């Protein structure tokens, strides 16, 4: 498997300005300022973290775009060096460190209705990422809603494509303590659902907590 760029972070946890553990099945909504770095730490391993970004100044106008990100790098997989692009063609964040090596942006987020299609009509009552997204947005004042939920990133999720057009959800290659780190290139709103999916291996059938860690800008590369 290639398309992987393993790079460790030079940042020291002692210098972090924010640390919060997000349990599985819960959302996390946070503004990240230009120059700040966000680390998402997979505490127990193989945990999918569904993530969307919005331009903090005009969240209903500019948002993360999976398709623009693929177009810009000519590759379907996300790893160190990937520029996370907006629908306006701007770089929103850059992945600066990655000890997992494989992240997906084609698999989307689970929803009650898509769970019915994928796993059985009786699965509708199960918790889903879209419910977490919608609840977090409904409780906020950004004016965002379902209309603003476009294709997201699934950090730590392994969705390989084949040259013949296949696409599968495979066992993750993440493990306890692996992380991905990204630097904000503009002020962004980060919307996360720590995935509650129990029907496929994206969380190793056992959704677990992740930690969100933020560092201030070092002034470099800005």
């Amino acid at each position, binding site marked *: 498997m290639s398309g992987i760029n393993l790079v460790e972070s030079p940042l020291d946890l002692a210098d972090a300005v924010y640390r919060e553990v997000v349990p599985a099945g819960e959302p996390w909504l946070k503004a990240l300022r230009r120059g700040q770095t966000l680390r998402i730490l997979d505490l127990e391993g193989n945990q999918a973290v569904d993530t969307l970004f919005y331009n903090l100044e005009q969240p209903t106008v500019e948002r993360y775009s999976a398709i623009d990100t693929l177009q810009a790098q000519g590759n379907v997989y996300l790893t160190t060096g990937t520029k996370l692009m907006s629908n306006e063609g701007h770089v929103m964040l850059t992945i600066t460190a990655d000890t997992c090596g494989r992240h997906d942006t084609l698999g989307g987020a689970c929803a009650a209705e898509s769970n019915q299609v994928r796993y059985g009509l009786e699965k509708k009552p199960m918790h889903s990422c879209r419910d977490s997204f919608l609840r977090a947005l409904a409780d906020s004042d950004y004016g965002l809603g379902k209309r603003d939920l476009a294709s997201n990133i699934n950090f730590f999720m392994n969705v390989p494509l084949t040259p013949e057009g*296949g696409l599968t959800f495979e066992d993750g290659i993440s493990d306890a303590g692996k992380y991905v780190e990204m630097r904000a290139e503009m002020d962004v709103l980060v919307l996360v659902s720590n995935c509650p999916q129990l029907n496929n291996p994206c969380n190793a059938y056992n959704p677990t907590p992740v930690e969100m860690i933020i560092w201030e800008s070092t002034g470099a590369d800005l």
Partner: protein
Amino acid sequence: MNHPDTAADAVVHRDTVPGGRYWSMVIRRGYTLRLVDRDGKANVSMLLYNPQNLLERYNMADTLKGQHTSKLTRGNMLYSDMGRVMFSIVEDTAGWHDTIGGITRDADIVRKYGEHRYQQVRNDFYRSGRELFLIELAKWGLGKRDLVANLNLFSKVYAGADGVLHFDADHSQSDDYVDLRAEMDTLVVLNTAPHPMDPAPAYAPGTVDLVIYRSPPVADDDYCVNFRPENTRAFANTAIHNCQG
């Protein structure tokens, strides 16, 4: 055209969209939209919405993961984000339709093909996929927030083992066609701008012929409904949506 046409008495409308133009219409349940790549040079960028609730729309991720595929062809269905089927691909001679290539933006068109503005070349001016989508979406009260990952019919993009994306420049042939059977009333917004990965040095997107015809009844052994168990369930969800007529 030497592709097999449908019975003339089933056809309710024919239309033609030149390259680099837009089109939109609600295709009602029970009707099929045929798209024909007249000269083997067309790319049709397409988005789908539920006209009764425009928040429900074609969802690339749900369509792909539900059918374990990154390409679309006969047997596949186009899923909405509400677990329903908007269209079934009941016929397809191209064999692969792209779901991940996206659209061109204005700057891409100028960079690849040079500047060709209306002032100089009148209606031969070059237009981007994004521009054409935004114009046509606006007529339905839709805009940037509704512009999500689109289909690119008649185009083939595939990923190598390393994830690198490739475009097959010789994919679609003259008179290739695809038939999309509406399983619920669906607003189709499309444009015929070039695919963003098309290496052709000239801006010469192909013409697309459209035919709308009455669908035959969906039989119990329907190929698309039975293509995958996910399709059977998505079709059952759609039947509930349609249960009152």
